[in-house]
């Protein structure tokens, strides 16, 4: 699933784009250092670890000797990333006199990680004892809570026109921010999903989550919240233990307001005791920083596609139904089963909406039912994938080229001269010698005009 990587990488790019001062301040927090380190490419992680106890700057030349010739491009990528995130500092003071480039670990980063290796990882805050928190949800309850919350958020996101009940407390303005780019609002037709909106729905949960989180952070400045604070809280959150209760009173003002929003997304569950209130991180939250480097939380699939283009989805989720409806005709819904068919018409609507055949196929493959995955045959029948691709290429039979039409030539000679000239310039699209008409690509129109003027 490359999407998670792209989107998650964008998130770290956002961190990298923070001003130097803010970034250095972020590195005072051990958890940020940890999360940043884990988000790096494997080679970069290794370099950071290797320089952990080296106080002197290391020259770029000597680092190049660490890699084999094959790995040189990876080496470059690793070093660039380390510098971008200010984990490596290029030419630290007092060393720049020499002409060679040299690198040193960011001192704050270094100290924090040295502590980590010496003392091991700790949790950001102490979990509450079970005597205060009366009954904590079980792991399954928490998972289904997170899923439910996230799905209802998504449903609301894509169908804001007909909100049946407000399940989330996001203000309409917040919601509109999330919908930017995903849903186009036209007054008469009501909201319609845009091309990227459809693609968003076909992504896996982690990728969607990162997308939303990124929007949330980008817009935090408008709400008067420092984005660096939010980033640090989110990264810290992913180091909490899933299913443990943490006291809300340990949070500061910014975090407390963020906690409410995150609960709406299903990242955490809020509970209220007699005196205290606490929050419980769900799997979605703790997976956040894992998916920075790795997309491991492969969900159990639910879709079975048969060679006769029929589609069975073992799911009770309304959201799954909506997603399938994007490219398939839903025929009936049973309590735990959605039955549909992939038809030419349903695919054409999908293509019109900007979904590509590859996206549909990869969605079907990624969400294939485990029984189908275990078979030796491909999880989606080959005749179905081929047909989906063929139907898409059918649509692309007509190619549009801007062109100019020339008419009423004075004589046959002029007409033929013009044809040859256009052909020589590679711009002749169509000619009718009987009626002396000619179509030429728009890009050589000026050349054509000059030529015809000269003929007069």
């Amino acid at each position, binding site marked *: 699933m490359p999407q998670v990587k792209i989107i998650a990488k964008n998130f770290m790019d956002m961190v990298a784009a923070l001003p130097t001062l803010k970034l250095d301040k972020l590195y005072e927090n051990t958890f940020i250092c940890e999360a940043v380190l884990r988000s790096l490419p494997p080679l970069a992680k290794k370099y950071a670890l290797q320089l952990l106890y080296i106080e002197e700057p290391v020259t770029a030349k000597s680092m190049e000797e660490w890699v084999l010739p094959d790995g040189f491009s990876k080496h470059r990528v690793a070093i660039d990333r380390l510098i971008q995130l200010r984990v490596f500092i290029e030419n630290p003071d007092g060393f720049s006199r020499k002409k060679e480039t040299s690198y040193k670990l960011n001192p704050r980063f270094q100290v924090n990680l040295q502590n980590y290796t010496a003392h091991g990882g700790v949790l950001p805050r102490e979990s509450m004892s079970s005597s205060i928190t009366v009954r904590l949800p079980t792991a399954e309850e928490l998972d289904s809570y997170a899923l439910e919350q996230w799905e209802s958020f998504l449903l609301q996101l894509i169908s804001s026109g007909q909100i049946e009940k407000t399940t989330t407390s996001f203000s309409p303005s917040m919601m509109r921010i999330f919908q930017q780019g995903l849903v186009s609002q036209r007054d008469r037709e009501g909201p319609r999903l845009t091309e990227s909106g459809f693609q968003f729905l076909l992504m896996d949960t982690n990728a969607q989550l990162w997308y939303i989180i990124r929007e949330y952070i980008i817009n935090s400045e408008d709400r008067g919240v420092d984005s660096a604070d939010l980033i640090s809280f989110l990264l810290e959150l992913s180091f909490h233990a899933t299913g443990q209760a943490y006291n809300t009173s340990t949070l500061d003002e910014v975090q407390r307001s963020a906690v409410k929003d995150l609960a709406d997304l299903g990242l955490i569950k809020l509970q209220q005791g007699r005196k205290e209130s606490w929050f419980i991180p769900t799997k979605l939250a703790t997976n956040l920083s894992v998916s920075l480097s790795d997309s491991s939380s492969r969900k159990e699939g639910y879709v079975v596609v048969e060679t006769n283009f029929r589609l069975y989805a073992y799911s009770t989720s309304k959201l799954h139904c909506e997603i399938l409806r994007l490219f398939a005709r839903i025929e009936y819904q049973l309590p735990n089963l959605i039955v549909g068919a992939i038809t030419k018409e349903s695919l054409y609507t999908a293509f019109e909406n900007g979904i590509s055949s590859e996206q549909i196929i*990869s969605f079907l493959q990624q969400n294939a039912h485990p029984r189908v995955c275990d078979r030796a045959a491909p999880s989606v029948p080959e005749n179905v994938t081929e047909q989906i691709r063929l139907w898409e290429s059918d649509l692309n039979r007509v190619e549009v080229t801007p062109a100019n039409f020339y008419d009423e030539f004075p004589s046959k000679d002029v007409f033929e001269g013009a044809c040859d000239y256009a052909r020589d310039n590679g711009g002749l699209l169509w000619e009718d010698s009987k009626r002396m008409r000619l179509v030429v690509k728009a890009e050589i129109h000026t050349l054509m005009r000059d030529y015809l003027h000269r003929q007069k």
Partner: protein
Amino acid sequence: MASAPSKQYSDDVSVVMVLLDTNPFFWSGANNTTKVSFSSFLNHVISFLNSVLLLNQLNQVVVIATGYNSCDYILDSSTSESINLSLGNGKMPALCSKMLQKLEEFLIRDEQLSRENLPTGITSSLLSGSLSLALCYIQKVLRSGRLHPNPRILCLQGSPDGPEQYVAVMNAIFSAQRSMVPIDSCIVGAQHSAFLQQASYITGGVYLKPPQLDGLFQYLSTVFATDLHSRSFLQLPKPVGVDFRASCFCHKNTIDMGYICSVCLSIFCQQRKKCSTSDTKRNSIEIYNHHLLPVAASG
């Protein structure tokens, strides 16, 4: 068309099995010419364990203590108890306090065992036992779940090889080779270990005898913290020479030349009438020379 989802995590997620040599005869000094105390050795190792865990959230470390008479798991980072206790007692993080406690219990048990049968001859550690434990654990990891991390074994060995374990160690090495698990070896003792040289050579691991042990952590983090994915494009120590000599089955001596049974490939240091392993008659016992038969002798 996309292939079926791979059972492995991408790139660099690893489970590292660390075999810790806790042989009291080595650390107590008679053999120990390296001037590194056990406690400072442990410090380096704990830092190394932490840094492996730091590199990836999904990384796992398992530590197996290799004693004189026995071996046992003393740390498994994947079990929940090691996570939940992290805040148990303020100063000392749970990971290492738990490990140190288990290590102590292990050492006491190991010592009791050696009271019963006093050591004679070479005081080697039970490397074969801990290698087998590590491989068992790895098999469990490989067979469980839809996704599994890349396993590898790291032997931190100080005490000399025990020739009597030759067959068991070689069997463990070949089974590691079959399941594509590299065995890395870091020698903290005075002499090279022929067993581990062969182990790393055969399984594609790294063999290193650090010249200076005060900077052990740097060696560990530079060489042995490298995940299998990155190894393909990094310069790592190459084997200088591998000691391929075998041990004879009759007296457990390391030999250059000997006799080999052509039926079961058992190796003997003296000519004998009948192979003790397969009951083959003498005429089919041939001369064994390790220069001619480097690896095949045990295959």
